[in-house]
């Protein structure tokens, strides 16, 4: 919030799914900023809406889901030129949106096996992305592709460019996926749990690679994960989500060392860490995450909250407000700004 022109500014985003059984408010009023060159980690458990949030930003929400309201202000040329554009106003299939997807904003999906087509070589698929967005010849595109593959640490890229995705190991496939995402020098890279399907040693390689690439190209990254360890290792700024709402945001150091929202605190206390005392009972969060059809009224976390204020938390929904110079939280312990209804 210090930088006046964030690269991406999501404001009060709401994405609902109209199912036969009723409406699921998968994302219900989410706001956050991404500064140029910043790694923003969105962390949350199942059903928190982190994946739907980034799908909304990319405008790839499939029916029955729909973006109900909110602004997605994207500012690719850093304040200069035409100023921020609101992606929420575009038609999901419009020419403008397609020009942004893959070029200015690229996605690293969760499952690289599913993301590559098995009948085309990985090189052809990466080249296709380049040719689509850049005025280069096929030969140049191939050269760029080899360069990108080398950059992400694929050994002998001039040979691997003609490999099919199923010929590569899990780690190499993930690297090829990153090369594809980086093909057009995006301003913003969105990584949707890119390391959940892979092992710790490979995960460490990929996280390291992303960090290095981010520093070289000054690409901003939105990193989605449920793993607090991964967030601590890679993020600069953290957005903590729970049941479709942002609970707390702040710089990574504050989130981990001075968490303010009761949910963030309880979550951090309840995870066993490699340094925690062995065989001691861990503090737990009572109950389980409600099903999206049964969202509690008021603050979504109140039924499990140790600091629950009767007649307040269950009656009104707190909004996300700055609570000190660095952090914001949606919690009535810190402010009494409630959502209007």
């Amino acid at each position: 919030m210090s930088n006046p022109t964030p690269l991406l500014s999501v404001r009060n985003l709401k994405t609902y799914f109209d199912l036969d059984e009723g409406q699921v408010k998968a994302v219900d009023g989410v706001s956050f900023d991404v500064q140029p060159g910043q790694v923003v980690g969105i962390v949350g458990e199942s059903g928190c809406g982190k994946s739907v949030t980034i799908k909304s930003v990319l405008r790839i929400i499939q029916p029955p889901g729909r973006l109900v309201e909110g602004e997605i202000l994207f500012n690719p040329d850093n304040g200069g030129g035409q100023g921020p554009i609101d992606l929420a106003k575009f038609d999901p299939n419009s020419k403008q949106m397609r020009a942004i997807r893959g070029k200015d904003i690229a996605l690293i999906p969760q499952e690289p096996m599913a993301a590559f087509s098995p009948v085309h070589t990985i090189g052809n698929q990466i080249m296709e992305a380049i040719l689509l967005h850049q005025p280069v010849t096929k030969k140049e595109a191939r050269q760029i592709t080899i360069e990108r593959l080398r950059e992400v640490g694929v050994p002998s890229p001039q040979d691997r460019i003609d490999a099919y995705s199923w010929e590569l190991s899990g780690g190499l496939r993930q690297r090829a996926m990153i090369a594809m995402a980086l093909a057009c020098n995006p301003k913003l890279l969105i990584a949707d749990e890119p390391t959940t399907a892979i092992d710790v040693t490979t995960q460490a390689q990929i996280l390291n690679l992303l960090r290095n690439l981010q520093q070289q190209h000054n690409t901003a990254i939105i990193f989605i994960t449920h793993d607090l360890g991964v967030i601590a290792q890679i993020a600069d700024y953290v957005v903590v989500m729970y049941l479709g709402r942002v609970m707390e945001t702040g710089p990574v150091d504050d989130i981990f060392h001075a968490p303010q929202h009761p949910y963030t605190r309880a979550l951090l206390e309840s995870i066993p860490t490699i340094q925690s005392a062995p065989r001691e009972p861990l503090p737990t969060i009572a109950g389980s995450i409600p099903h999206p059809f049964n969202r509690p009224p008021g603050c979504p976390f109140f039924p499990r909250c140790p600091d629950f204020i009767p007649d307040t938390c269950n009656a009104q929904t707190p909004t996300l407000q700055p609570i000190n110079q660095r952090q914001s939280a949606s919690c009535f312990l810190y402010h009494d700004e409630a959502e209007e209804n």
Partner: protein
Amino acid sequence: MTTQTNLLDVKNLKKYYPIKKGFIKKVVGHVRAVDDVSFFIKEGETLGLVGESGCGKTTTARCILRAQKPTGGQILYRTGAGPVVDLAQLPDADIRPLRREMQMVFQDPFASLNPRMNLLDLIGEPLLVNGVRSRKERTERVAELLQLVGLRPEYMQRFPHAFSGGQRQRVVIARALALNPRLVVADEPVSALDVSVQAQVLNLLLELQQRLKLTYLFVAHDLSVVKHITDRVAVMYVGKIAEIAPTQELFYQPKHPYTAALLSAVPVADPRRRTLQMPLQGDVPSPANPPSGCYFHPRCAHAIDRCRTEPPALTEIEPGRFVSCHRARELDLIGVEDISVSPVPTHPIGG
């Protein structure tokens, strides 16, 4: 806290899967999923079995429970009645009476409960097939078990779809405990659960162990969880044991380079300790086509010529510490930083 008797003594366990090719399904090779694995579990302790996917940890666990028949080796189990039997050799008919002593908790609580049975039938089934014919008796025992795992007895008529992942895992645990087992094999019991409910299940497992004097074989890939719950840890790599040691020692002073690499790869939930600077190169080799010598040598920073040709044997280099590395005695490897030595203040800014 542990007695010295071994409940389970696994010796040179092997499980190979044939690779078949062509129309007549000729065997052209073997996937050595578990290749010469030896370890023991003392009565009342928790042994962690860790490693990356495909390292054979789950196959090892399933061989011990005889969900799969091992290709070779011995699984010496001291039965409740006293005599020691070799589970690897026993015919299926003789395994069945022993099943009540060894139970399993599965990874995915959505897949391991039959959705068409209610809790009474699910938790009561082990009792029923082991001779408890009276429905009243079963109902009472199920109520008792539900209470034991922190669920209400009134839930008995409900079906699994009424429960969240954490609650279902409690049901799975109740079912595993129905026959008063001595050994519980837990195969990644919390990795399918949400972070905020993992702690509940881990606490429950710890509490039950103390109350019921259970012995656990805890299979997991999450080292933080393993550190939290185990007494000793066995690290596996491509079907072989790399290292076995008491948990604290293994985490603070690893003796095998793979253990050290694995530990350094764990993302620590502390932004002030960005540890992922020196990750391992390359990928885990396939157990169908492992490298020569020590399987870890192509990725090992400390490999010497001997490692490329000669497979290391699992040796006890200190009392209780088993390592299969030629250089185990000479290497000085870095483990997890002990924060009791160099504490990081936890609330320097916020408070």
